[in-house]
């Protein structure tokens, strides 16, 4: 666990890495419940290879929440679909996505496992909540029918029992009159209620891993507060491991124990939430923090945005993918930012960042230049 960079790109073949203590995967039901190693998801297109996720590694323990933060096209959603085995879904006839690396879920490596076995884990051991609950629920089936279906895939029970379970779950997520609303269609629910129903559906089988992809982005702020509260409570109750994917630093700060910042399909910084917010060690993280107006501070004179636009995933800038937008790209010597891709290095306890600047340089820039402006 101490040298994360070593593991990146080194051991891809399934099986060879098992039991290597260096990589820190504890044998059988240990603390790293989810262990993703050097995950790559590439999509061949006519324009070239889209490297949506390009070498991502992280671990997640039971009962903990990991927040994955990034802008559109950073690869955060593809990561979650890759873990669920849904990255190729809907890709009929297109050139198939390529996925490599290892995803260990509770001792099972998912990428080399039998697809039918992985299918049975979906919805039972790992479940997902999507951004827009209106389009994520089938418009022709009632909420109840959809939850009942989710339950009966993995439990051999009759419809009546399953429906009782559905009502129970709807009640648990705070839907009033659940015994009546269970027969409503998604379009008869408000946005917030739909997302509650979606959460009820994803938790109906007590999954050990819950992935929430922008769970509140489509919701109003007061409803968002309710949903965040609900997710937090449910996690406490169910003890699931949760991955929250969002572009909103406020949302991760609310929920996450650990934060992983993605840029151009790679992790640029990862660490405990407090570290990433109070002692960020990557210029992109600084940029994100400087970009958002904050209600909890006195009025900022001016926002400090990141210049330029997010990169194309087909043609990532060479060296550090962030270098064309980085105000400090010229600090490291020999143009190394434009030629060598920085690996994640440990910058503190359980805190990694991928930057060519020295630790001291970054510490100085953060404390002297960035932090005072936030």
């Amino acid at each position, binding site marked *: 666990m101490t040298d994360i960079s070593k593991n990146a790109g080194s051991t891809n073949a399934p099986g060879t890495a098992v039991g290597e203590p260096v990589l820190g995967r504890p044998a059988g039901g240990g603390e790293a419940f989810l262990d993703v190693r050097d995950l790559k998801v590439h999509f061949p297109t006519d324009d070239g290879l889209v490297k949506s996720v390009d070498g991502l590694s992280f671990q997640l323990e039971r009962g903990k929440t990991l927040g994955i933060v990034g802008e559109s096209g950073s690869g955060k959603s593809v990561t979650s679909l890759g873990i*669920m085995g*849904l990255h190729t*879904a*809907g890709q*009929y*006839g*297109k050139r198939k996505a390529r996925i490599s690396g290892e995803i260990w879920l509770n001792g099972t490596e998912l990428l080399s496992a039998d697809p039918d076995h992985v*299918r*049975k*884990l*979906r*919805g*039972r051991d790992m*479940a*997902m909540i*999507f951004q*827009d609950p209106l*389009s*994520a*629920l*089938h*418009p*022709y089936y*009632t909420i109840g029918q959809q939850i009942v*279906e*989710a339950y009966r*895939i*993995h439990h051999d029970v009759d419809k009546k029992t399953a429906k009782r379970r559905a009502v129970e779950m709807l009640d648990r997520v705070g839907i009033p009159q659940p015994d009546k609303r269970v027969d409503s*269609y998604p*379009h008869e629910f408000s946005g917030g209620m739909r997302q509650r129903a979606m959460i009820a*559906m*994803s938790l109906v089988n007590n999954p050990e891993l819950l992935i929430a992809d922008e769970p509140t982005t489509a919701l109003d702020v007061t409803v968002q507060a309710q949903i965040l509260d609900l997710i937090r409570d449910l996690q406490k109750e169910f003890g699931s491991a949760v991955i929250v994917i969002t572009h909103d630093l406020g949302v991760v700060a609310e929920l996450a124990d650990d934060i992983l910042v993605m840029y151009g399909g790679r992790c640029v910084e990862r660490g405990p939430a407090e570290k990433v917010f109070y002692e960020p060690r990557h210029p992109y993280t600084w940029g994100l923090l400087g970009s958002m107006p904050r209600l909890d501070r006195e009025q900022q004179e001016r926002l400090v945005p990141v210049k330029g636009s997010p990169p194309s995933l087909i043609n990532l800038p060479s060296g550090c993918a962030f270098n064309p937008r980085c105000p400090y790209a010229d600090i490291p010597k020999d143009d190394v930012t434009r030629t060598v891709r920085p690996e994640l290095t440990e910058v503190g306890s359980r805190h990694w960042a991928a930057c060519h600047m020295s630790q001291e340089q970054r510490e100085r820039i953060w404390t002297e230049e960035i932090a005072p402006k936030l």
Partner: protein
Amino acid sequence: MLAYLIRRLIAAAVMLVVIIVVVFGIFFLIPKWAGIDPAANFVGKQADPAAIEAVRQKLGLAEPIHSQVWEFFKGIFAGRTYVGGGDVTNCAAPCFGYSFRTEQEIFPVLMDRFPVTLALALGAALLWLLLGVSAGVLSALKRGSIWDRGAMVIALGGVSLPIYFTGMVAAAIFIYGLGWIDGQFVPLEESFTGWLGGLILPWITLAFLYAAMYARITRATMLEVLGEDYIRTARAKGLAEKTVIGKHAMRSAMTPVLTMLGMDIGALIGGAILTETTFNLPGLGQAVLQAIRTQDLPVILGVVLITSIAVIVANLVVDVLYSAIDPRVRLA
């Protein structure tokens, strides 16, 4: 739901009245423009003016148009009595009038022919649904594959080749070449196998054309549906792919197909003129063709009305089915 249905029913009834009036009006005007005297037409060649005048009186052709429309309209719902030339003719309730040519009551004649056309339309529809939808779904699932391209080329052929061509080729092969069937239409009451034998080629021919269209539309909607978020949700639940496709995707993809089906069957019930002619089937299509050749206006009028009713009814059925499939429609 009930209000929705009632509104649709009322709309259908209004539509029907409008069609009757408009169609009758057109058929009243055509002879005028074309310089044909319907009465003379009715009596036939070498008629003496007195006979023509008698017919004109009896059919009420001398009346102003609005009363003629009203009489015709009334005849459909209440029956009609023709008085003139010394005798009285009773035409029972759905009275479409009398043929100029055969002097037979039109409605019973058309009703004799109706089952043939209905059998042709429904049988072909079943066939093209099976063929078209399954080909479309497979094409969508294997987009870009040889199967997909092949199926779409065949579909393009199906859409572009006219019925009389495919029909003739089919007849040449199966009737004259291989001699598997004799190609003569036999009423269902006489022999089931004979009936089947007489309809099988028209079914296949007609289905080929429509299956091609249905395959293309199914493929397109299926591809769209497969990209929907709720399909991803279905997979995320751990559903097997066949359930995802067969249950979740199919239900959504079938709605536009259903809409098309209603209109197509409705239109075909009015007579598949080309198919019926090609295979010499005694259906409505043949009747209308004959009527057009002989300027038998009341028969044409009758067939047009039956077609309109069939289309309206089929659409109504589709609307009801649609609201059963898509719960969001019920609120409309």
